[in-house]
């Protein structure tokens, strides 16, 4: 069963712009994670935010979590062409097990 749902499904921007992706989920969570997948490859873990945290930063990434609205957002600032990838949110609601959304396809044009 899918827990997280990303919005938008696809996002196209110019290099230097910010990219914002949203994730909504249905049940209570222990943490929420974001992953990147380059075409045809495995997923790479980007950032984890725990249920008692509201915001977290890592380099050009900023993640927010609103547990009252059951939603999260991923902001990539000053996007680069190399950021072109699919981005997935995943929720951890039970011991060690993640449930993934369907992803947002981000295209950054040089």
């Amino acid at each position, binding site marked *: *069963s*899918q827990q997280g749902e990303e919005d938008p499904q696809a996002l196209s921007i110019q290099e230097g712009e910010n990219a914002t992706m949203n994730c909504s989920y249905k049940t209570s969570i*222990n*943490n929420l*994670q974001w*992953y990147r997948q380059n075409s*045809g*490859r*495995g*997923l*790479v*873990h980007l950032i*984890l935010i*725990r249920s008692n945290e509201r915001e977290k930063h890592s380099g050009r990434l900023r993640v927010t979590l609103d547990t009252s609205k059951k939603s999260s957002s991923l902001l990539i600032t000053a996007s680069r062409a190399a950021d072109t990838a699919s981005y*997935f949110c*995943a929720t*951890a609601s039970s*011991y*060690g*097990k*993640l*449930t*993934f*959304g*369907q*992803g947002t396809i981000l295209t950054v044009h040089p």
Partner: protein
Amino acid sequence: DVKVTQSSRYLVKRTGEKVFLECVQDMDHENMFWYRQDPGLGLRLIYFSYDVKMKEKGDIPEGYSVSREKKERFSLILESASTNQTSMYLCASSSPGQGGYGYTFGSGTRLTVV
């Protein structure tokens, strides 16, 4: 560099064949997972394991089985491959504790059943 290694990047098998997908991790992780990824359906959990010789069904276990005889190796078995099992298969591992450290994924195996 720690990693999860999947034995094949691309695999073509015939309908009815028994197929083994191998996954090895070198991080001494207790938890290992098998997902399949299909367009429009995202990643779906097939099986997972929290320890050697332990296995738990995920969301779509039908037509699959797994084996974990050693901590570092988690195998996915398609007992009798069918065309609807054509997919990208992703293995992942993590350390225990509510998924608190994130997953490390392999590069994936793209399986085509003809």
